[in-house]
């Protein structure tokens, strides 16, 4: 390998290093973007985020990948960035699996998993832009919502 080749290899590595760095930064900033806020709350409700469970309150931020858990008296009402309103009643467990809201590119998705409990949901802009993008998964079924409001009970 002559000097010129070595230089090229160095440049390529340098380039990919930067790409990796940029990729890391962009994925980090995506993960850190809040997707909703807690608007109503009855104790006790918690969020499990990256394996750590913390209690919620009015004004708490919600992120993609959060699992929300309520005890026998707990309830939590969330309004998402697209204007969707989700309320989880007592003894519930719900995962916000996927939330993507880039309306200009028509790039949207809102998929949640309900393990148990009751949920009231009214869709927002994501449902308006792309109705087939709003989905709930439960242990027995999949719910495809084409606007606008549903109530769900998972026993």
């Amino acid at each position, binding site marked *: 390998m002559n000097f010129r080749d070595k230089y090229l290899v160095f440049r390529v590595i340098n380039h990919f290093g930067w790409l990796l760095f940029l990729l890391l930064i962009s994925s980090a900033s995506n993960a850190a973007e809040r997707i909703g*806020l807690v*608007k*109503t*709350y*009855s104790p006790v409700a918690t969020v499990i985020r990256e394996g750590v469970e913390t209690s919620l309150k009015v004004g708490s931020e919600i992120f993609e990948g959060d699992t929300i858990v309520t005890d026998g008296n707990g*309830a*939590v*009402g*969330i*309004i998402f*960035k697209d*204007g969707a*309103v989700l*309320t*989880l*009643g*007592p003894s519930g467990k719900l995962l916000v699996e996927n939330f993507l809201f880039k*309306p*200009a590119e028509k790039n949207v998705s809102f998929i949640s998993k*309900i393990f*148990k409990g*009751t*949920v*009231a949901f*009214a*869709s*927002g802009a994501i449902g308006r832009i792309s109705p087939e993008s709003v989905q709930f998964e*439960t*242990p*027995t*079924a*999949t*719910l*495809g*919502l*084409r*606007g*606008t*409001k*549903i*109530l*769900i*009970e*998972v*026993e």
Partner: protein
Amino acid sequence: MIFRILFSALVVNTLVACSGTTVVLVPDANGKVGQVDLTTKAGTTRLSKANESAEASKADKAPSQPEELSESKIKDMFSETLDKEPKPPEHFVFHFTTGSAEILPDEKATVAKAKSAIDSRNSCDISVIGHSDTVGDNAINEGVSLQRADAVIHALIESGVDKNCMDRRYYGENDLKIPTADNIDEPQNRRVEIEIR
């Protein structure tokens, strides 16, 4: 060991057996009724009328046929959840003349209305979203929709709304209220929407 396996199999079975899903389609805050598909491995049931309900008791069984539930039954099942529902977001709209980002004199009252809605909800969760019609180049229209959003943000700040409670979006001609072809002068598309959450 064998007991433990049997026991856990039993636990798993009871869990699955108890995991029935019931869905009810209800009118939204504006009285609008949409549509929902309940799908298992064995079939789909579509609900399209107010208060219609269906159940998926097992993943490998087809969901039940639609059945209309009474208001009192719905209350029985969901009152604890519905009692905690947040107020739905509120929306306000400003319109603009072609190419302009100036708030129209007869829409200045909307600023005060939005401010009082923000105050009464005690909201620090507001989006201001600018749009244009399809007249002219989209790159220029993006700029116009940005200026419109800024004009509304500025008016809200002047009325006392905290700048840090608002996020700005602008879509140029990419999110038309009234779908049109390119280069169409459509007043309803030249707008800024405020969403108060």
